[in-house]
């Protein structure tokens, strides 16, 4: 029996002529419904229709009908729909209200005036269902991203909703954290609840899903889960030349804080036209290493050297850089500062951003924003390219475009260093792979290193 029914639903964001959702009809019942599709296709918008954030929170215009648990979404405020629909957002840090785990899980129940005694039982049950009972008594700020996201799932479950919706819950997480969250989602769906998940990492969930819906350009298409084919790993264009001279080096470098050393006695170097990948757990020192190479952080001891030339640095939260009125002007600004004559169109085309080049970057979807930020830092011919988790939240198409761009930069003589958890990208582009863990750096053997 369907818990949610959308019938010819169309939705326009405020001041937009093109609908974000275009005559969408679908039903959601018990079990796991997967929502897939490229960035900017309308996945997040569709998910927000289930609990009324679209249109009540975001405004805009809506046509057609949406009924969830017998309630008309258009006529029912989100705060009332919240009793029937639990929602988990992408960024675990931006959905935390309280600083203690149990309080966070109980926040929704407090809002609906649940009696404290029942509330405590429901909170405990939700924590068990989401696999976070061991986090009781912990402060939210001490949790990893994966733990925080599972707490967010627990707080959605605590209100005992008939439908649980998760919007790319693993996009901001490392593989370990993502694995734990996906495991918890599978368990909740196995329990017979209705769960809708928008996700790029389909492989882990498609086997247990009851339906797969592809969303592209605001239109939906049902796909048989068993017919889903995993995307091919990215392939790298053949190298056009051998690596050149040393581009950067760290000699016996110690870095961090006087009372907390992050890297200790690191020896590492990279060459022009070479791609070095850094892997390892969160907090291991990858970002510190990139900042050292970039010159944004001074070492406590040792020496850091780099050839003169432009540095292109993509920070972990690259969208924070965006402040110009259009994506094109973001690219033009970097080229102007670097004094490079290249047209912005080259990188916009390479990253598949031509369609949105004239739009305000902060109005774009998460994946499109990520690509816009990449376009903003990578145009022209930087001599050193440093990328911190560049594929976070990216769809497969964007990831492949990034791989091709890295190959182009490499072939033009740029020295590239990327910190990434994405094994497919690492295997496709890296000449050498290093694991950064517990303050040290060690090279990992890999078959593709001779590529």
């Amino acid at each position, binding site marked *: 029996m369907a818990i949610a029914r959308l019938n010819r639903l169309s939705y326009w964001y405020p001041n937009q002529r093109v609908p974000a959702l275009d005559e969408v009809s679908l039903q959601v019942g018990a079990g796991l419904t997967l929502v897939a599709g490229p960035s900017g296709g309308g996945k997040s918008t569709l998910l927000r229709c289930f609990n009324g954030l679209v249109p009540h929170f975001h405004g805009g215009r809506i046509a057609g009908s949406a009924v969830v648990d017998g309630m008309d979404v258009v006529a029912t405020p989100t705060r009332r729909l919240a009793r029937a629909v639990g*929602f988990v957002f992408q960024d675990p840090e931006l959905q935390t209200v309280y600083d203690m785990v149990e309080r966070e899980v109980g926040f929704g129940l407090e809002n609906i005036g649940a009696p404290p005694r029942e509330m405590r039982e429901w909170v405990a049950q939700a924590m068990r269902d989401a696999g976070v009972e061991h986090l009781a008594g912990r402060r939210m700020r001490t949790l990893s991203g994966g733990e925080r996201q599972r707490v967010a799932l627990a707080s959605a479950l605590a209100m005992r909703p008939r439908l649980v919706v998760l919007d790319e819950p693993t996009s901001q997480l490392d593989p370990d954290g993502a694995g734990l969250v996906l495991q918890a989602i599978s368990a909740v769906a196995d329990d017979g609840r209705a769960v809708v998940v928008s996700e790029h990492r389909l492989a882990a969930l498609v086997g247990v899903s009851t339906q797969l819906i592809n969303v592209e350009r605001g239109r939906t298409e049902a796909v048989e889960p068993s017919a889903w084919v995993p995307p091919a790993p990215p392939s790298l264009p053949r190298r056009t030349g051998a690596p050149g001279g040393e581009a950067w080096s760290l000699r016996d470098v110690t870095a961090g804080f006087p009372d907390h050393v992050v890297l200790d006695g690191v020896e590492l170097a990279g060459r022009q036209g070479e791609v070095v990948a850094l892997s390892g757990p969160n907090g291991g020192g990858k970002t510190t290493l990139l900042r050292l190479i970039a010159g944004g952080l001074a070492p406590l001891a040792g020496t850091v050297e780099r050839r003169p030339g432009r540095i292109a640095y993509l920070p972990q939260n690259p969208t924070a850089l965006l402040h110009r009125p259009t994506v094109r002007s973001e690219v033009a600004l970097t080229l102007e500062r670097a004094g490079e004559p290249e047209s912005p169109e080259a990188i916009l085309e390479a990253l598949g951003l031509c369609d949105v080049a004239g739009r305000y970057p902060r109005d774009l979807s998460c994946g499109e924003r990520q690509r816009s930020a990449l376009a903003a830092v990578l145009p022209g011919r930087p001599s050193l390219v440093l990328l911190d988790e560049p594929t976070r939240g990216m769809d497969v198409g964007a990831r492949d475009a990034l791989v091709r761009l890295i190959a182009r930069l490499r072939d033009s003589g740029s020295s590239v260093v990327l910190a990434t958890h994405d094994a497919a990208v690492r295997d496709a582009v890296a000449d050498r792979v290093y694991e950064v863990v517990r303050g040290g750096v060690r090279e990992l053997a890999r078959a593709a290193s001779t590529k």
Partner: protein
Amino acid sequence: MNARAVAAWSAACLFITLATSNPAYKAVVLAAALSALAAGAGRRNTRRVLVGVALIASFAIVLNFVSAHLGTTVLFALPATLPGVGGAYTLEALASGAAGGLTIAAAILAAAPFSVILRSHDVMDALPSALARTGTAIAASLNLVPAFATSFSEVMEAQRLRGWRPRGPRSWAAVVVPVVLTSVEGSIQLAESMEARAFGSGARTRLRPARLSGADWLVVAAAAAAGLGFAVALAAGWVADWGPYPTLSPPTVDLRPLLACLLLFLPVLTWRSRA
């Protein structure tokens, strides 16, 4: 510990600190606040607060010493022709600055338990029902403050590597605009998340209703007795005023208001560190 008990204790400390010019009583309040903070927040957290308080208090002392050339006990003098700093430097000006610094330090430490010992939900739970929704919204938005500070340094570093250089106030737009926009977007996402969890539905309940324990009642009683006792002492004229000018003299201390101040040490026995 209950936020209402902490509020009562803080109010008593602040009342005594601000109601008298006598530094002896302020010093007792400062000692009580420091001891209570160490008991409730642990020595390490207290040390961090102390560094900040010491800096602010030192600034007040130096400012008064340099700018107030009053008093009779001249320690040294700079030529009067030196703009801003010229003139006699007196022991009285130093003492006056120290008394000012003492007031600032005592006031800050009296209020410090709200940020150092209590957690945001402790304060929210203690608010009356009418303020519960507002308090929740404020507490939630305060969660974004650390992210704002981190975002500022990250954006500045990334923009610098993108070729940005600070050249006049207008150039700072490249840093300030993204930081502000990111913070605003963070706030909107938080609001969206709260809306999705039924925030604003109606009367709220609490997972653990805030109740005053026996120890909390003791603190409230001690704070009330201290505040009331000191007020009576003030009215009765037992609290002597103090001023360093024109010639420095030690403050006069009466046992009765001093006893009232000593009651503020009670949290040392009842507050236990969560650190």
